[in-house]
């Protein structure tokens, strides 16, 4: 186990710090413009395209990729797969950061962000799936925060509080799975109300199910993906248990991801059969749909299987990165590319550079926060003073 008290002094002007600094600076400038001149000045949103990448990427992708928290904690605490224990804390942390950033990004997108609590405290639009998403995201962010507190409390040395929270683990995990199931699926169900706008290959009565199942895939893949990144950059922060279990986590998650991907592929095909959308496969959108289905579902399914069979971590890690990209592709398709497919190309949406700037800014903040927390709190190692809960 590394001695966490040794702080390695690094030069402040590393390339990473310089790039991150520039991004943050630009992000802050755009923030000022956004909150002084409105969305017209910072986005390419229009009356035809009310949602851009701040929803398509920051919300849809962000929430999907933060699914690692509930997937890992469910595997460890509910399904009793204790050998994945070391993966839980990093997953919870990324989940928490992910959701926090989603909420942060939403402040940019909605017109009057200070009214975000209105659905709960002023008037409840319970018929809206967005209400459900909002409620679940808010609650789940709280759950993730509590789940994450043991690490912070250990860092702060608050033993009593930490032991109270530790006792809540199972309840919190079950809560997390329930809330995640609901809002992950509801993000897909948001589009159920617009059958005339979403391309028939993507619109399906199963949309909610697709989003939920693919969030499991996203969660599994993100844990592998982050694990490999953390291994590269924070190897010195990891304890023996973490290092010993890391390969097992990757192998187990790869096998699970392959299996879930197979199921996902089948339900996608059945969805096409149910809506009888076969004839669209011959069109341009059909080609793009096939790229998604074959390139980002079937292909990773196969390579995960190969990786798990051959115990080849390199393949697994690359496949994980590819699958994460596939999730991005899928969410972009539903949220933007196949959405408004009926409009002439002149009315279609392409993000403004400032929109991209804010999205990159938000991701950068996430990475910085992760870096800070991982270097300061017991995430990649167990605190010597505490038992594993």
């Amino acid at each position, binding site marked *: 186990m590394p001695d966490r008290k040794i702080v390695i002094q690094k030069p402040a002007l590393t390339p990473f710090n310089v790039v991150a600094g520039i991004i943050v600076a630009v992000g802050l400038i755009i923030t000022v413009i956004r909150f002084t001149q409105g969305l017209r000045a910072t986005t390419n949103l229009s009356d035809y395209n009310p949602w851009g990448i701040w929803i398509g990427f920051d919300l849809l992708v962000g929430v999907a990729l933060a699914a690692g928290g509930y997937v890992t904690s469910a595997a460890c605490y509910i399904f009793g797969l204790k050998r994945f224990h070391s993966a839980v804390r990093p997953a919870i942390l990324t989940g928490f950061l992910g959701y926090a950033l989603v909420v942060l990004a939403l402040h940019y997108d909605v017109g009057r962000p200070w009214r975000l609590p209105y659905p709960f405290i002023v008037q409840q639009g319970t018929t809206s799936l967005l209400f459900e998403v909002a409620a679940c995201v808010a609650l789940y962010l709280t759950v993730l925060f509590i789940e994450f507190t043991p690490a912070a409390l250990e860092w702060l040395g608050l033993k009593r509080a930490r032991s109270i929270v530790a006792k809540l683990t199972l309840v919190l995990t079950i809560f997390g799975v329930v809330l995640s199931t609901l809002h992950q699926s509801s993000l897909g169900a948001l589009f159920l109300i617009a059958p005339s706008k979403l391309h028939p290959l993507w619109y399906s009565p199963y949309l909610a199910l697709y989003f939920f199942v693919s969030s499991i895939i996203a969660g599994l893949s993100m844990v592998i993906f982050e694990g490999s990144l953390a291994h590269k950059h924070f190897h010195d922060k990891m304890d023996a248990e973490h290092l010993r279990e890391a390969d097992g986590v990757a192998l187990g998650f790869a096998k699970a991801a392959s299996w879930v991907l197979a199921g996902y592929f089948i339900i996608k095909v059945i969805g096409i059969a149910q809506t009888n959308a076969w*004839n669209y*496969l*011959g*069109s*341009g959108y*059909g*080609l793009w749909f*096939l*790229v998604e289905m*074959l*390139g980002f579902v*079937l*292909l990773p399914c*196969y*390579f995960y299987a*190969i990786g798990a069979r*051959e115990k*080849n971590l390199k*393949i697994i890690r690359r496949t994980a990165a590819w699958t994460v990209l596939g999730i991005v592709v899928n969410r972009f398709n539903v949220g933007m590319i196949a959405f408004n497919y009926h409009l002439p190309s002149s009315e279609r949406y392409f993000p403004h550079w400032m929109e991209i700037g804010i999205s990159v800014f938000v991701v950068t903040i996430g990475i910085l926060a992760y870096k800070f927390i991982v270097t300061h709190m017991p995430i990649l190692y167990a605190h010597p003073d505490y038992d594993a809960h």
Partner: protein
Amino acid sequence: MMKEKSLFRRTGLVLTLAALMLVLAIMSVQGSAPSTPPADDASKPRADIIRIDGLKQYGRLERPAVVYLHEKHTQALAKKNKDCATCHLPDQKYRSTNFKRLKDTSKQEVMGIYHDQCTGCHRETAGAGEKAGPVVCTGCHQERAVASSWTEIGMDKSLHFRHVKAQEKKCEVCHHEYDPAAKKIFYAKGKEGTCRYCHLDQTVENVSSMRRASHAQCIDCHRKRLAQNQDAGPATCGGCHDAGLQKKIAKVKDVPRLERAQPNTVLIQAVKSDGEKVDPFTRPAIVPFNHIGHETYADNCRVCHHASMDACGKCHTLQGSKEGKLVNLQTAMHRVTATSSCLGCHDAFKADKRCAGCHASMPQKETADLAGCGTCHMPKPPGAAPPTEPKAVAAMLLEARKPVTATYADEDIPETVEIKALSKQYEPAKLPHRKIVQTLAKNIKDSKLAGHFHRDPGTICQGCHHNSPVAKKPPACASCHGQPFDGRNLFKPGLQAAYHLQCMECHKDMGIEKPVATNCTGCHKEKR
């Protein structure tokens, strides 16, 4: 481990390739078909496009039907001094319209004939170093969108007259009957009907389809006459069927009346379903029909005699019979939506610009308005005793029923009408009332049809002054049209809309471009 690694790489590669191939396969099957047709002949519309899809009768086509350009082949053969005989074999009397065969025998054989003979000739031609047609499957079997100028051609009065003249009134050259017992055709004088009575869209037993019959007989005759340097009709596809060339076919003005012993006047006769004729003079009103008058308006006999050259009542009996497809006499005469009914044909004239101004805004519904009945249905003449010849009675009644187109005297028609009711922002609109009436009256002056239906001098006023009795001084618009959206009368527009709808709709339907509907000051002068 290293070995296994190369295994993954290989499988991955294979999988990727397979996926790519699948994508390409789907693209080629589904995507390419409707996308862009080869544009070789698409530039100029043609009348000679034949879809060779005869194998349809043996089940689904395995490949796309062949789009065959007939004149391209005729011209190519003509250059080599070859003619129809190259492809069309002689049948009993005329050449077969089929390609290199008299009959469709079996799928294999028909397919074989096309494949061997078409590609055989193409190969031969190509072998001789000349430009030739395709020899591979997809060369012929492909979906091609060639612009078509094909239009149907029919024997109208003018064309018929020219044929009669050219054949020196020998009707038997074309007209014939079929004797099913002897399985022969023969000519029956005075029984001539139109081709389509027997030659239907599809070949039925021994009666060939209209298409086949006309192509065999017309072209054969035209070709024979052409060969003898006689005046003859076209012998190419476009000659008859190209929209442009069709217009160049000479039209005879004032075609002399057809000679088939048809009556000048008819008394419409009702027949009961059992064939018993109803004595017209026992009926309260009878319909005299001006046969010779209608002949000038109809392009051919089939306009009215749509299935046989018989009296309407023969099939359309009083109660309806099987031969008349259960359409009874009443319906056959009155159904507005039927083109060959009296009312249907009369109604079509309302679309004329001169008539549409008033008639387009009148309901098209078949009306139960009994006032109009008297135009056709007349009480029997008092003097005519029962045994009088019906045709003579009809002639007598028609003599008494002359078209009238007169309206009120000019001084009875207000010259201008000022519309002040809606002038908050504008000066009163000045309606050139008399000019309008005079224009309308002029429009119908030459129409006998209009003359019969606008018998009262006030009828023409009804175009605007609707829904009130015919009168010299009809009520003002505002006396009916008040506030809009009156809950007690859902269908009546308010005054402003009533004016605008009446004026502007009429202008639109009559093709009067000024004033434009959106140009307020065109009618209303701006208030200063």
